């Protein structure tokens, strides 16, 4: 961060001749080439490929040679409007609450860890909580079978022990918003809290010492010092996450529900919708249409968020 300030514009020599510049600095012109090529092929080309949403895509025509149909894909989209809207609603609810609850949980855990003096306890719990981040959603799906299985799962055993009726987890869609949200909070808490913990450890300790001398108790110290100091990081992380609210991967849904049609009412997201219609069934029209509005809303969201960040702290703005 400090390097930024050091970079005075006067240091940059005026550009004399392009050939001279390239010759002198050939090494630095060649070195990033693999990365530049990669980014163009795998990140920028798909952005250009969004042109597909205006086409009647055929394999022969390809991405840029298929028939141009303008907004006609939206007709197909409106034919499947119910499932498209459902997918959008599910995506926003699942991602939105995961971000909200996730941020709250991460901050809470980071603060709690910071208050713990016993180093051994701190290290062990941090490692244990970090572990779920490093296993795949497929593994999480398998693991959750031991809890949710209708007959053998621990949850139903527990419910029945208390005299309740066994719950049909895998055929009851109304349970899956909370399940998906809580599992993604569960999976991310170790990693997310580390980010806040990293910020916490950098705070000026003399503030806390002063507060203690003044007789502030732990809760007061957390509320009056820690949380206000942590606020920029919280807002920043929150805003960065919210830009991707319409995107998301199929891994969690595939791993946890195995694309169970019984649960689509609450688990079909934009990502799984595109996967099912375009890749499994080869219907590119409705997938194109949903991709179009996903990108438009994604773009608007990122721009809005960026404006908010700029207002809040120009240093953190994306552009």
């Amino acid at each position, binding site marked *: 961060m400090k390097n930024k300030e050091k970079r005075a514009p006067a240091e940059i020599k005026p550009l004399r001749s392009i050939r001279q510049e390239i010759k002198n600095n050939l090494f630095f012109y060649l070195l990033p080439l693999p990365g530049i090529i990669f980014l163009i092929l795998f990140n920028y080309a798909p952005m250009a490929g969004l042109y597909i949403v205006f086409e009647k895509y055929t394999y022969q025509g390809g991405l840029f040679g298929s028939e141009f149909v303008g907004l006609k894909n939206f007709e197909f989209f409106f034919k499947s409007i119910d499932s498209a809207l459902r997918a959008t609603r599910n995506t926003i609810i699942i991602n939105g609450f995961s971000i909200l609850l996730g941020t709250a949980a991460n901050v809470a855990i980071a603060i709690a860890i910071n208050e*713990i003096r016993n180093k051994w306890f701190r290290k062990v719990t941090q490692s244990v909580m970090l572990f779920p981040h490093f296993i795949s959603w497929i593994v999480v799906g398998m*693991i959750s079978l031991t809890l949710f299985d209708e007959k053998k799962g621990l949850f139903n055993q527990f419910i029945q022990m208390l005299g309740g009726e066994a719950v049909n987890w895998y055929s009851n869609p109304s349970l899956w918003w909370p399940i998906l949200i809580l599992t993604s909070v569960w999976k991310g808490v170790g990693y997310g809290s*580390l980010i806040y913990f990293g910020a916490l450890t950098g705070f000026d300790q003399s503030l806390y010492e002063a507060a203690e001398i003044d007789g502030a108790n732990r809760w007061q110290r957390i509320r009056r010092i820690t949380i206000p100091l942590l606020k920029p990081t919280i807002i920043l992380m929150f805003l960065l996450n919210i830009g991707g609210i319409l995107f998301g991967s199929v891994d969690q849904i595939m791993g946890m529900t195995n694309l169970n049609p019984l649960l689509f009412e609450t688990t079909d997201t934009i990502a799984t919708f595109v996967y099912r219609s375009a890749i499994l069934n080869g219907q590119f029209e409705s997938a194109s249409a949903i991709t179009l509005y996903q990108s438009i809303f994604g773009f608007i969201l990122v721009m809005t968020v960026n404006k908010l960040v700029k207002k809040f702290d120009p240093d953190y703005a994306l552009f």
Partner: protein
Amino acid sequence: MKKGHKKKESLVCILIVGIMAFLCFIPLWITFAASISNETAIVKEGFSLLPRDPTLETYRYILADKGKMIIRAFGVSFAVIFAGTVYSLFIMTTFAYTIAQKKSVFRFSGVLSFFAWFTTVFSGGILPWYILMTRYYGLQNNLFALFVPYGMNVFYMFVLKNSFKAIPEELIEAAKIDGASNMKIFVSIALPLAKVGLVTVTLFMSLQYWNDFHLSLYLITKTDLYTVQKLLYNMMANISALLSGTKSIVAASSITIPSNTARMVMTMLTVLPVVTLFPFAQKYFVKGITVGAIKG
């Protein structure tokens, strides 16, 4: 002053963290317990916190019956980890070193940094990506499809950039005065000094490749090229297909194969490399995450 640091422990905080850690640990433990349980006991009484009639029978069964398939999948996964980590580390280090330069050394470092950062915010979504991979780049049903699309993880790349930035400038200057070429400085000074960052990113990337399901889901249909994750997913999918059938099929299948414990054994095998790597990697993870969290 030292006394000030010996504050009283907060029971509430210990409880919160303890419960959370417990919740993170216990599902894995149940899975492990199931993997060493007796199949009929699980079918009769369900999963449990302690293994039921501990036995290694299912492990033996899985390794004997599905051994070839599993070894193959492990082979594919390890090949992907190896090739992928080398490939993406090459792309990321060269790029990160360039953008770690000051503007006075290389005038486009800022532009390139933005060029990479931009892709974390905007994306074309999965549809054009899928068409490009399969129709134009030929990345379908071959080993390359399992790692080439992951050449650069921008966040990890920024971790590398930060570790290059942390190298004291005087060292580079001194080497320059001694007449070392840019290449020489990069290879024999910068790379060794950025070792912590390199190790962190290597570990991160290996785990990313190991856990990846995305690429094999979209780009692989051939069974020869199944990774361990894909194999696990298929085991889950096939057995759930059985479960949704009639009861007689379920009964028949539980006689022939220990389906419940088998899935858990497979899960344990999938997690095993992570478990073995994790203790060594832990300190790097903590460092890497805190360094890479904030925009480079």
